């Protein structure tokens, strides 16, 4: 629509105004501030007089051993949980396409982990994987896999595995719904044509289903990668970075540095490194999918 008179221009501005004000004040301003802080020495000791130190915070971040540990942890978490929950979610969606009855019941039940809050879900998992917990009992006294209780939460990779299992468990339902929506849009005659050409189920999946839901895969990939880098509450609740920051992720390490040691400048630089990495990843994913589309002549 065109804006005709002066009064309607004023009204358009008025409608947009509240949203813009909140957005600028509580999101844009903090982003700018974060950027500025990352170039200053800004900590408990220098709250009142901050000193401009250029890229020093960034060099400190990159030379920090625990930053590298937490970066690797975050990457591993994302690389494991994102494809994991996408594959399982798509699988459940495909199963749902095969059945007639109880569709809604299965869908609702599998969506329950998604609506369970991170705090509560993390505490349940922590309880399940406790050294004296029911999972250890199951392994030692019923399956007899080991004869001693495993201390899941006391070492780097087993602690991270608990968090990753939680991430996958909680994400399958979301992927299920997203992929179910996409699968319902795939034209039926494509499948029939493929069958007539002698394609079996697996071939139909790779040559019909996957190309048809490419857009949804990209959407899920980008959303979940952002979510994977955002992992915070589960780590905080399950391992709290222990032992000795070995299970910290970027955000828990950033949070620790800022609010336990007061290194706000350092943490700001870390936040920017993280946001930058995410932006690059999102653009890369987008580009890769697009070039694939172009090759397949779909775009």
């Amino acid at each position, binding site marked *: 629509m065109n804006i005709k008179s002066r009064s309607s221009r004023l009204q*358009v501005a008025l409608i947009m105004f509240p949203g813009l004000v909140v957005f600028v004040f509580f999101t844009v301003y903090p982003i700018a501030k974060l950027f500025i802080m990352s170039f200053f020495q800004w900590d408990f000791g220098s709250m009142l007089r901050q000193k401009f130190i250029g890229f020093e915070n960034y060099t400190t971040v990159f030379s920090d051993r625990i930053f590298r540990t937490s970066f690797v942890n975050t990457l591993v978490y994302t690389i494991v949980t994102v494809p994991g929950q996408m594959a399982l979610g798509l699988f459940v969606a495909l199963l749902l396409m095969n059945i007639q009855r109880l569709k809604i019941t299965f869908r609702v039940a599998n969506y329950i982990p998604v609506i369970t809050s991170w705090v509560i879900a993390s505490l349940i998992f922590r309880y399940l994987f406790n050294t004296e917990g029911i999972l250890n009992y199951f392994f030692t006294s019923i399956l007899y896999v080991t004869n001693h209780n495993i201390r899941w939460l006391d070492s780097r990779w087993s602690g991270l595995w608990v968090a990753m299992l939680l991430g996958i468990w909680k994400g399958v339902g979301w992927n299920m*719904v997203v992929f179910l929506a996409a699968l319902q849009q795939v034209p039926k005659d494509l499948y029939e044509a493929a069958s007539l050409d002698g394609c079996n189920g697996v071939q139909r999946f790779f040559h019909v289903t996957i190309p048809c839901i490419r857009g949804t895969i990209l959407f899920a990939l980008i959303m979940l990668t952002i979510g994977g880098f955002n992992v915070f509450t589960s780590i905080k609740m399950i391992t709290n970075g222990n032992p000795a920051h070995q299970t910290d992720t970027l955000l828990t390490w950033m949070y620790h540095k800022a609010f336990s040691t007061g290194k706000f400048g350092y943490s*700001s630089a870390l936040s920017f490194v993280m946001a930058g990495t995410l932006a690059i990843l999102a653009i890369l994913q987008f580009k890769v999918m697009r070039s694939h589309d172009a090759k397949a002549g779909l775009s």
Partner: protein
Amino acid sequence: MKSKIILKDERKTSIVSYILLTIFTIVAIMPMVYLISTSLRPNGALYEFPPRLFPKIENLTLENYRYIISESKFYVNFLNSIVAAVITVCVSAFISTGLAFVLGKFRFKGKKLLFGFIIMTMIIPGTTLIIPQFELAITLGTVNKLMGLIPFYIAWVIPFSTFMIKGFIENIPDDLMEASEIDGASVLTVFFRVVLPLSSPAIASVSIFNFLSTWEEYPWANTVINDNQKRTLPIAISGFFGQHQFTQWGYVFAMSVLTLIPVIVVFICFQKYFVSGLMSGSVKG
């Protein structure tokens, strides 16, 4: 003959599908069942040996619930959560629809840039902004107050809400709005009388997501709120944790169950909107 084989095959696939779906469903809901069963056993018996998935019937107790409701500040925390979530949802629905309407239906300079910028902020995980936002809350004097939560929550949900609602509004035919404009309605009237009512399905599905994410928000509330009286539910639950040498799991889980009830109610009542919201987002993207 051939069709019989196909039918048999289909039946086999559907039986296998039912079995696999049942396994997935068990994995999905088992932790919740365990949560509820643990909340119903005496606090001291939580690490009984051997551990049991279900408590013995004679051991069932509502003691944990009694404690949470009478001794803890549960109703205060509950009220704080409700107030924060409801205000966030209502205000953000209103102002995001405004933004979405203007960005979706009007032409003006810098529109693409503005929308692009709003979308870009979705990439930045909210928690990375926690330091400057905390400083802002200190400057505004809203630390330890619900007002320290609500505006930040609203700002936090605006990009996603605007993006979703804009997609919906763009599909409303211009004629509908132009017709009322010809009848002499002002832009404001069109917004309130035509746009807001027509986009209510999109607003509903966005609002449910906003309610859930506000209801369960942890990092920011944990940073801004210290005062017991101002805590929201997630902070109160995690507060039980590590408060004593041994975590009082019975209390933790009783409170968790009580916290999940509103979520389950919202989910069941608005199930339709959940799916439609996710669908429109994903198919578009």
